[in-house]
């Protein structure tokens, strides 16, 4: 019996202790007419040996492509130590640290994580994770509505330069509560939100979302946008790539007084691509908003002997205490990914992260140049980018995708569906994992393909 340790003898002695005749009799409170005949579509059990082979074959089927796709999920090098430690049983198979004394490992790590994220984002405090970047944005919006005491509105200004899936998720999660998202269109030359295109008199708005870099990889005018929002009593929700923060201005320093809430996708910090998850959403904010923050927060305190220790705190915001009045319904979050991220940041360090960011930027710039020199594609927007760029191709992007993937190259993400006005565009990304030879391979293939067609 897989994973069940009972011998026949155990069962007998346990039933005797219970005073029951059979295991079956323990289920006699379930009305007979509800009892099922059993499972019919679950296949027969296989041994670990068999499933290992099945899974290895599945994994090999989708095997490693040279990946130039980003769009919210980035291939970075992850030090081997990160997951070797993260998957140690004591982290991997522990529950949420409700019994603080028996969970000091996880709790101290989370406190360290909060410190790192607060510093990276330039915010006062950080929570201990949300599900992913998209849902973190949704939670940030709900939080902003609660936090902005100066505004009575449920209007959120949402640039179209925010990741399209994030916008959908924010909408899907927030719409029940009547939140209104008003889209801001972008400048066709810069691929950014022009500060001077913002309404002079926007009325009562709760918050403005500012992505940096934005979905196109482009850098927004964060200072002007932030100040504009604050002038109009709106809060600023920054949505950022954490790797970029080693290089780019922290949201806490945007404009005159900085953003109010920062959120984003934590995946670049040590989480493998892994088909889109598990990743983790991060969220940080100004101290004054801490009681509006969703998710778990760890505090440092002392024990009976005055010794330093760590514990979950401010639980009165959470569903298990506040129930229908909680700041969010989130309970299980993405702890293990935060474990990996913390170890990742500790190993890579501030200089390492800066180099990862810079190398990713440099590689992308270099790829863009190589691609442009094929004469078959060009950079669409003229603003500086972080590590992604929208390329306009001569040939149809679905054809490019088909031909390239057949050669085990993922050439980028086709964003023409989400932005039909842009034409044959592909969002490309070359992180630090790419060599010059890799970039050249891509460019050569473009040349070859376009010749063919």
């Amino acid at each position: 019996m897989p994973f069940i340790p009972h011998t026949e003898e155990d069962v007998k002695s346990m039933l005797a202790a219970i005073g029951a005749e059979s295991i079956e009799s323990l289920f006699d409170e379930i009305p007979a007419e509800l009892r099922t005949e059993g499972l019919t579509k679950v296949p027969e059990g296989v041994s670990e040996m068999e499933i290992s082979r099945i899974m290895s074959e599945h994994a090999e089927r989708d095997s490693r492509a040279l990946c130039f796709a980003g769009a919210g999920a980035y291939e970075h090098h992850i030090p081997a130590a990160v997951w070797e430690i993260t998957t140690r049983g004591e982290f991997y198979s522990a529950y949420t640290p409700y019994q603080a004394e028996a969970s000091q490992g996880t709790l101290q790590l989370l406190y360290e994580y909060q410190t790192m994220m607060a510093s990276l984002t330039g915010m006062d405090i950080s929570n201990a994770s949300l599900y992913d970047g998209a849902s973190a944005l949704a939670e940030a919006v709900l939080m902003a509505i609660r936090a902005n005491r100066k505004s009575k509105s449920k209007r959120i200004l949402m640039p179209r330069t925010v990741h399209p899936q994030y916008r959908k998720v924010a909408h899907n999660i927030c719409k029940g509560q009547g939140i209104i998202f008003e889209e801001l269109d972008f400048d066709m030359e810069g691929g950014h939100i022009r500060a001077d295109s913002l309404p002079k008199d926007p009325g009562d708005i709760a918050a403005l979302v500012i992505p940096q870099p934005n979905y196109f990889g482009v850098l927004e005018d964060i200072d002007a946008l932030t100040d504009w929002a604050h002038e109009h009593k709106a809060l600023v929700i920054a949505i950022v790539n954490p790797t970029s923060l080693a290089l780019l201005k922290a949201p806490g320093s945007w404009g005159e007084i900085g953003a109010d809430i920062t959120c984003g996708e934590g995946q670049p910090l040590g989480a493998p691509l892994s088909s889109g998850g598990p990743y983790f959403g991060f969220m940080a904010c100004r101290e004054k908003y801490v009681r509006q923050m969703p998710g778990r927060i760890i505090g440092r305190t002392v024990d009976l002997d005055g010794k330093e220790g760590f514990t979950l705190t401010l639980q009165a915001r959470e569903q298990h205490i506040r129930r229908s009045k909680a700041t969010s319904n989130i309970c299980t979050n993405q702890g293990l990914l935060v474990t990996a991220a913390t170890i990742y940041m500790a190993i890579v360090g501030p200089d390492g992260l800066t180099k990862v960011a810079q190398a990713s930027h440099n590689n992308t710039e270099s790829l863009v140049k190589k691609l442009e020199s094929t004469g078959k594609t060009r950079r669409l927007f003229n603003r500086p980018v972080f590590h992604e760029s929208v390329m306009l191709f001569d040939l149809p992007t679905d054809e490019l995708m088909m031909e390239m993937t057949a050669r085990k190259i993922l050439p980028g993400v086709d964003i023409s569906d989400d932005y039909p006005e842009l034409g044959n565009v592909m969002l490309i990304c070359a992180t630090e994992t790419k060599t010059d030879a890799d970039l050249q391979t891509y460019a050569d293939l473009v040349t070859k393909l376009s010749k063919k067609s």
Partner: protein
Amino acid sequence: MLIFEQSKSGRVNTAQQPANVNSETDIPSEFLRADKPVLPEVSEMQAVRHYTKLSTKNFSIDTHFYPLGSCTMKYNPRACNTLAMLPGFLNRHPDSPANMSQGFLACMYDLQEILKDVTGMKEVSLSPMAGAQGEFAGIAMIRAYHDASNGGKGDPERTEILVPDAAHGTNPATATMCNFKVREIPTNSDGDVDIEALKEAVGPHTAGIMLTNPSTLGVFERRIKEIADIVHKAGGLLYYDGANLNAILGKVKPGDMGFDVIHMNLHKTFSTPHGGGGPGAGPVGVSERLIPYLPVPMVTKVDDEYHVVTEKNNAQSIGRLSAFMGNSGVLLRAYIYARLLGCDGMHRVAEYATLNANYMMKQLEKAGFELAFPNRKATHEFIVTLKKQAKDLNVNAMDFAKRLLDYGFHAPTTYFPLLVPECFLIEPTETEAQDALDGFIEAMIAIQKEAETDAEKVKGAPYTLPVRRLDDVKAAKELDLTWTAE
């Protein structure tokens, strides 16, 4: 010692940096960061040592019996981790087209099929990232269903979700997130829903009811069919909180009980790791009438090829709740687990989980502990109330819990459900051997003796852990949430 306290400015791990990076950036300075972020500057070995040592300060399934009620802390087979982390799976970009994804999608499709069978629901979407997000998806579907009623005109009267008072906090919190009002339904002395109170509560304002069955009181709701009828008759839908699915795998299916929508906690029933707080996965299954509203993406199979279903294909869907396909790696682990168990193994889960719970319940009762529902069978979990100890000896459930840690056992769930005073919700799971159960029972008896003879000892626990009892009040009052250099 915190990792920051081991940091030294200028220390770098060369092996972990991309080489030859031209650091003169062409990004205009207005966009650039001026200060160096407070990340540790430690050697790789220092980091390894620090986090390896930290890990040993945790209790975990791999080291301790962890009878945490409602959490299903059972063995997380190591193969599930190893196989889900094969490079082929880890390296797949979520935007890879279907021609590069047949291996991964095949697993997802098969998992959907398995979950349909297990729950008796008609269709399943895997994407919710934990139980609470599954609940959100479920309640959002109930809203979408009512909104589409009356030939599309909707039913704006249906503003209430009914929730038993024993429900998990995520249930009312979810209802609120979907803008429903929450109405609590009381529990009767046997742990069942108070049917009379339910009858009074339902009406044209009832959008639905959220139920866990077996409930978090550790008993099976025997009149579930009647409840379903009452709610359905009133025009409401039934939501099944699948946190306790472990108790009934292969015995009874939520679909057969009359539920319209269910979420599963794969990190419980399908033994994916809890990871010190996640990640989880909370797939949702639905009855016929809610199929159009399922969250995307899902996976379909056409002529032996697997495809991803998105908003484009399902216009009525409540949409996506994550940027990609939820916690895919968790779903892979659950799939591997399901295949390892197979049909037979899955039946046995509920059987042995129930056997273990009833055994512990009986042995604790024999040892003099008071059960919350002495007339009921335990399901996969049960409740002991320590209210007598609290009153007579001034030793409460928290004290017992902390002292158990000294005995090498993780404490059961305490103070939940809220309606049983000084409660211990105990869930041994099917993967524990009788020895572990007996060890726990002996520890409880020993602590009871201590409480009688030396209450202060129990109240001062724990003594043998990395820290003694922590000051939660100070933590909340004098917020210290990030480290700063002195």
